[in-house]
């Protein structure tokens, strides 16, 4: 590899900013200075699709209307555990307006037997709401009437829906053999090759940070203080505004899929695999996306069903889940019963950290408490055992920082307890145990903005309505996808277009791509046309793991840089200079040493040899290499959040008054959009701390609150004042040096709120959500 040396900014402005030299590939663009020296990057650039969205011109998957389109609906099992003896679709087929019926012969979107791929005629029913068959009809009402006419003969069996019951020796079994669940493009799945015993699978003892370390026994024996508690979190379902769904348009030689998806590339790959088609014959389009928080990476059983129905009927089929289906079958954040034990010296130094967790992803895998306890603090002796417990309930899926939100709820409360026990301020304790430089700065800047000094002793407010403040930290890895490619095209009329399969799920990917390319070409972001969310364009990673910004913006910049150099070469030729002697700014190309030589960018394109310039680039390896494999970058996406709450100890009602969220994501690209992401993460964190939880009826196996009436998501009054502080951090890892923020925004909030509730009441809440019921039970010893 031909290399060159780049000198790049490194460190935290206002703290320890310096420069660093890195050997990089010869094709890499020059180093960008820090944000205050850039034109568009790091600024509050307006979303380029804002107008389309607020005027309703943006068409989402659920808005799609194609000529001859049918509506698909699915028949779901009313029983949580059953065998299907027979299915009779005759009456439904003859119902007027029905065009196609399909009955599943395989279950999708749940764990599958590892050593047994024998296809039964019908998959066994393992949760109430599991789809069995689908109908495509001229409208939804007809499809639903037809579903009622499908006759199914079930043999029902005992079932189990709670972790505690599932672990009893006599519990009905969800799976009778070892099972696996593939991670479909970042949307979940579990560690491979673990054994299942009864309903218990695991333990998972390692992550990409490695396995256990040190000697726990020794660590605890060296400790001055040992604390151990059990923390519980709830099952948290997904409530995106737009439910899961697709429109599949199966033409004999080409299939087009409109998908409300976080991952166009993986949906294409999975569809091609399921239907045995070449990837080149499947096109997935996600132009606008109505919200995805981790569960929308896979094709899903609804996508498979729509594929079959469109293939059979020869017409486009739209299949969108309704809200109830979304709750019961479209993925959820598994619960956790998390035993966490810490040993520490008097000065706060941790000597041992031991973690054991059980959680249920229903019929899926991936219940765990993440890597946060393993990675956030310095502790020489550590071990984790994370178990999946199967229950007859809908499958889990990724949910904004999977595992780590559950993990943080425990870890950060335990640290709060440790600080109190050692009589050290929680922030000072972190200064001792947290070696992260970025979080140190975040603590400093956050504490000042929040006015942490005013913190009182727990429960010190007089009267029944008490105020409290608390804080918590988060860790999230810098995940990078190298299968991230971008094309940039420039046209003779001056138009510039960016193309990639990468989807914008509302996070603002379209806008940051325009900013990055505009910055490189000396143009304005609004001059750049962004065409993404379409697998006709180059592959890109899914919007999961907070990886998109860090993965896609470097190739976007690099492709734009290549295009720029090609254009500069053509211009330089006319001026009898070398391309390197030219530069761009303010929509112009000019000679660096001769101000008289200048031409408008647009005019230069008008003069070019061909009608278009076309360049592409894929994600280069990180400058200086990766930390793990080719997927985990050095550094982390840490945050510190502060919460202020009011607790009415007589009604049990907890109100969050204010959050200060201090975050870093490398080089911030768009301040407004970053704030939006943090606001969203904080709101969902508050909701996790106080409101949302799935209610399963243990006697009938149904979710009782599968709607937005009884499943309590936050509304306007539940949203506090949220102040964000962004800490710029340069680490010289790529041509943009930018990273994402979606998941980090969601990790610390619930723990910060729980710590604030403790500070208000003097009573520790070990279980989320902290509802009036839980508060009153605790304060009244019920």
């Amino acid at each position, binding site marked *: 590899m031909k290399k060159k040396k780049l000198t790049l900014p490194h460190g935290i402005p206002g703290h320890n900013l310096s420069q660093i030299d890195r050997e990089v590939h010869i094709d890499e663009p020059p180093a960008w200075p820090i944000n205050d020296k850039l034109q568009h990057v790091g600024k509050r650039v307006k979303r380029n699709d804002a107008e389309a969205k607020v005027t309703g011109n943006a068409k989402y998957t659920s808005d799609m209307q194609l000529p001859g389109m049918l509506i698909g609906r699915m028949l779901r099992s009313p029983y949580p555990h059953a065998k299907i003896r027979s299915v009779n679709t005759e009456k439904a087929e003859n119902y007027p307006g029905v065009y196609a019926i399909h009955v599943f012969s395989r279950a999708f979107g749940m764990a599958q037997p590892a050593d047994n791929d024998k296809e039964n005629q019908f998959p066994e029913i393992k949760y109430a709401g599991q789809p069995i068959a689908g109908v495509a009809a001229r409208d939804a009402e007809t499809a*639903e009437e037809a579903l009622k006419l499908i006759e199914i003969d079930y043999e029902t069996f005992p079932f189990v829906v709670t972790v505690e019951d599932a672990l009893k020796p006599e519990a009905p079994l969800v799976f009778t053999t070892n099972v696996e669940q593939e991670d479909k493009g970042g949307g979940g799945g579990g560690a491979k090759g673990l054994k299942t015993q009864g309903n218990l699978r695991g333990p998972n003892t390692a992550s990409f940070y490695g396995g256990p370390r040190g000697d726990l026994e020794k660590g605890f024996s060296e400790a001055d203080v040992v604390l151990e508690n059990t923390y519980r979190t709830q099952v948290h379902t997904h409530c995106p505004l737009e439910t899961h769904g697709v429109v599949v348009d199966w033409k004999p030689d080409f299939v087009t899929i409109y998908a409300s998806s976080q991952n166009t590339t993986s949906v294409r790959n999975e569809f091609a695999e399921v239907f045995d088609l070449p990837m080149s014959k499947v096109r997935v389009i996600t132009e606008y996306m109505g919200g995805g928080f981790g569960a929308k990476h896979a094709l899903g059983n609804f996508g498979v069903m729509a594929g079959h129905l469109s293939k059979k009927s020869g017409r486009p089929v739209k299949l969108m889940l309704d809200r109830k289906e979304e709750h019961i079958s479209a993925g959820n954040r598994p619960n956790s019963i998390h035993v966490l034990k810490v040993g520490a010296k008097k000065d706060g130094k941790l000597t041992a950290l031991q973690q054991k967790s059980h959680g249920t992803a229903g019929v899926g895998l991936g219940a765990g408490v993440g890597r946060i306890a393993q990675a956030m603090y310095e502790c020489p002796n550590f071990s984790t055992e994370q178990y999946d417990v199967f229950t007859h309930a809908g499958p889990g899926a990724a949910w904004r920082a999977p595992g780590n939100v559950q993990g943080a709820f425990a870890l950060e409360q335990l640290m709060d307890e440790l600080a109190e026990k050692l009589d050290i301020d929680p922030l000072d304790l972190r200064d001792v145990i947290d070696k992260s430089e970025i979080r140190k700065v975040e603590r400093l800047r956050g504490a000042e903005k929040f006015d942490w000094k005013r913190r009182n002793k727990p429960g010190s407010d007089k009267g029944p309505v008490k105020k409290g403040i608390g804080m918590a930290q988060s860790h999230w890895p810098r995940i990078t996808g190298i299968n991230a490619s971008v094309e940039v095209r420039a046209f003779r009329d001056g138009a510039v277009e960016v193309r990639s399969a990468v989807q914008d799920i509302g996070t603002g990917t379209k806008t940051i791509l325009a900013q990055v390319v505009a910055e490189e070409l000396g143009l304005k972001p609004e001059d750049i046309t962004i065409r993404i969310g379409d697998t006709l364009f180059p592959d890109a990673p899914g919007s999961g793991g907070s990886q998109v910004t860090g993965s896609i913006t470097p190739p976007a910049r690099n492709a734009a840089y290549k295009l720029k150099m090609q254009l500069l070469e053509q211009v330089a030729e006319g001026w009898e200079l070398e391309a390197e002697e030219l530069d761009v700014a303010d929509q112009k190309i000019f000679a660096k040493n001769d101000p008289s030589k200048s031409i408008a960018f647009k005019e230069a394109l008008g003069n070019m040899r061909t009608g278009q310039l076309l360049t592409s680039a894929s994600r280069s390896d990180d400058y200086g290499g990766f930390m793990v494999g080719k997927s985990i970058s050095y550094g982390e996406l840490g945050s510190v959040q502060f919460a202020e709450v009011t607790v009415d100890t007589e009604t049990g009602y907890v109100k969050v008054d204010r959050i200060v969220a201090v975050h870093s994501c490398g080089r911030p690209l768009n301040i407004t959009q970053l704030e939006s992401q943090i606001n969203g993460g904080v709101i969902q964190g508050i909701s996790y701390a106080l409101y949302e939880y799935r209610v399963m009826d*243990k*006697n009938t196996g149904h979710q009782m609150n599968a709607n937005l009436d009884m499943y309590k998501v936050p509304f306007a009054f539940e949203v506090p004042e949220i102040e964000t502080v962004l800490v710029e951090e340069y680490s010289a890892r790529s041509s943009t040096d930018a990273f994402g923020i979606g998941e980090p925004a969601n990790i610390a909030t619930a723990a910060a709120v729980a710590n604030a509730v403790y500070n208000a009441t003097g009573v520790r809440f070990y279980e989320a959500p902290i*509802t009036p*019921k839980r508060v009153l039970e605790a304060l*009244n010893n019920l």
Partner: protein
Amino acid sequence: MNKFSWYQASSVEEALKAVNSTVSESLTAKPGTGAVFKSGGIDVLDLMKEGLLQPEMIVNIREIPGLDSIEDTADGGLKIGANATLAEMMENEKIKQNYQALYQSLNHAATPQLRNMASLGGNLAQRTRCWYFRSIDHQCFRKGGSTCFAKNGMNEFHSILKNGMCSSVHSSSISTALMAFDAKVEITGSKGKQRLVDLDDFFILPGDDPSRENILRSDELIAAVILPKISSDTKSIYKKQGARESYDWALADVAIVADVKSGKCSKATMALGAAAPVPLRIQYAADMLVNEKIDENIAKEVAEAAMERATPLEHNAYKVPLFKALIKRSVLQLA
């Protein structure tokens, strides 16, 4: 949702001629039969969407002229037509000034959009939000089944009083306030026959008939709700606690109406919502206020007394201290 026909009633007589079933009756009738009333349609539509209600005909009473009027009564009270929406009631000056607890209950009910559609009549006749009742997969007492799933199931939002058979709670929080004001319901039957019943008698307990929550028969229509005159000493307080501050059903709500002069109470009524399968008057506790000076002690005593017969279930014992807190605070606010 099933197909149905639509009948646009332009008078009470027409409506009564067209209707042949209450929504409650229709829930256990053969699918595709029965003609039922609809005003704002909020509850009717919800029940239809879940597949619980499959009527043959919807009788739209929404457009009947005059059924939405709000007028003074001859003796100084207020008569509110059944079709008046919750939003219209909130705009009425008399409700705002004289019937403050009612105003507060309206202000805390549902959302502004829902209040624009929701009628008073529909609010009284709405069915419970018990999640087993609302689920097509659970055939409970109230739908002709033979069990109450909530009893030994997930019952945190359920009743703590009079919950022997069915442990649902009535969902009308407006009625909590109306009951404390001793409201009466004017009902028009076939051939124009009118009857006037106390709101207390309008609601019925599951033990009397689990399939319905009120006395309405299939040939009857709620015409109006009548509020008696209040005195210049009347104070009224309404408090509600939900799981959220933004719109939510009550975990508990309380209304107290009392005559108080110089801090001393001469007469009081109290009703609790979300406590029992019906909005529940707790008169014996309210009576404890009579001739008492309003203070912390009496407030606590009343709260304790009101909860002394509570029989909470596995998951809703928290409602007892919650009601006590709301009652205590309401009483103290009378001073």
